[in-house]
């Protein structure tokens, strides 16, 4: 595997009560290599995302981003450094419209507080309209996000993360809640947007078809540990993985 190391976890451990959610996790995330994380429910996949984005603090171990130790930073500090996140349950501003959600993100990204200028007039607006087009959501720009179906909410959630112009984007099950007939289409949209913005993605995914098509690397999680890590071709054909992870999925 080549490419610059963007993020690295070294010996990360975390426990909740008696449950080990992460144990001796050592993994590197390379620039330009989209990493899929697979594994059974409760394996600690989301916990890993939480640790990498600063939401949880590991009990031991360290997280590096761009070579700097970021273990103790808050999510907002990591976002400022270029680590964005999309959530399993879309985290949207439910009293705002789709475009407003993106405008808030854009304003946050460019640190444009402008206390007495209406948000609709900020210069980033054009860019956000364009971004909406990129994720094929232009037609719902003025709809309140609370009215949208889950699939569209997921897209908006990811669009918000993209509006932050990240170097690294974590996505927690980007296609869950999307009808299976649309999954590929949705992920195509996302993948295009990612490529266009030159963003490295790490995504948790259950659908092996999606993983095969979009991931450059795959890491397998089991009981808080990384059991396998390699190219999709190697990993997805490994008998243990087929038995423990993929078998369960099918």
């Amino acid at each position, binding site marked *: 595997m080549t490419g610059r190391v963007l993020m690295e976890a070294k010996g990360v451990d975390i426990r909740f009560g008696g449950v080990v959610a992460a144990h001796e996790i050592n993994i590197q995330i390379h620039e330009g290599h989209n990493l899929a994380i697979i594994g059974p429910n409760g394996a600690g996949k989301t916990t890993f995302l939480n640790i990498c984005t600063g*939401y949880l603090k590991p009990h031991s171990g360290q997280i590096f981003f761009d070579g700097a130790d970021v273990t103790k930073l808050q999510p907002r500090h990591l976002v400022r450094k270029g680590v964005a996140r999309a959530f399993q*349950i879309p985290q949207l501003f439910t009293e705002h419209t789709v475009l407003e959600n993106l405008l808030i993100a854009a304003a946050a990204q460019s640190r444009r507080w402008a206390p007495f200028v209406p948000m609709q007039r900020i210069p980033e607006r054009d860019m956000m309209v364009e971004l909406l087009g990129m994720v094929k959501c232009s037609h719902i720009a003025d709809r309140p996000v609370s009215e949208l179906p889950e699939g569209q909410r997921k897209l908006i959630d990811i669009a918000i993360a993209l509006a932050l112009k990240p170097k690294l984007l974590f996505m927690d099950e980007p296609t869950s809640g999307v009808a299976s007939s649309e999954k590929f289409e949705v992920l195509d949209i996302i993948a295009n947007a990612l490529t266009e913005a030159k963003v490295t993605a790490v995504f948790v995914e259950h659908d092996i078809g999606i993983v095969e098509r979009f991931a450059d690397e795959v890491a397998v999680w089991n009981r808080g540990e990384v059991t396998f890590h390699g190219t999709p071709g190697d990993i997805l054909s490994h008998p243990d993985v087929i038995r423990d992870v993929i078998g369960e999925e099918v």
Partner: protein
Amino acid sequence: MTLQLLALAIFDGVAYAALVFLVAVGLTLTFGVLKVLNIAHGSFYAMGAYITASIGGAIFAAGFSPWLAFPLMLIAGALVGIVVGGPVEKLLLSRIYELEDVLQILVTFAVFLILEDVQRLIWGGQPFFESSALQVLGTVDVFDITYTVYQLILLPMVAISVLVSLRLFLRRTLMGKLILAVTEDREAATSVGINAERVYFVTFVIGASLAAFGGALASATTSVLPGMGADMIVLSFAVVATAGLGRVEGAAVAALLIGLGRSFAVYLWPEIEVLVPYLIMLFVLLIRPEGLFGTTHPRKI
């Protein structure tokens, strides 16, 4: 400060803490289950006190034994809990559990405002002072200082027995276990088929009764007057927040802390007496935002 004064300050602090605990524990119990900070809790306290003082005054004047004050206090507590607290939960609070936090607080604030004037209309604006219960127990001299048995011995004993029986109730009885389950995780509890509505109702009535019972006990030691409910709700909140919202045993510790803090202030620096509960609360929250015994559950994302 001599050892004698230290002892005196502790006695005073404990007696005061006992009363505050009785009210605060009801508040924290209700909050734990309903997740609503009931500002009208202070009104229940005041009404318990008013009922005991006014009925007590009437029956003792008519020549009945002052010992009747004690059963009267229990009755007053239960009465307010069921007759006032019950309808408030059933008719009003049950309609607002889905509203935002802000509106929930405001609804209980509205109930508080209404009950304030209800008290004024029923009992008028002048203070009641009815201390037969306190007098009948007599006094006891400690270090040459006369204390009333009621404050020095009875109140702390009642507080301890309420704490113990509440623990037993919550851990040993079915209803108690249901209440604990709803306190821990409302969604999980309802998903396994617990009738949350009934649990809410019972908890609220118990909480209101405890407040009113606290008021009934307080009525023998203090004058009962308009505004006492407002003071008490703020003080109880200080106790509950210091302890951590929803913590029953913690409320006992926090009440003791605030009670002792207050009485030591009277001995050492009387001018800050009224500020002590807030200062303690601010100090604790500054260091532990979730309170002494509170826990934070990071949101699942």
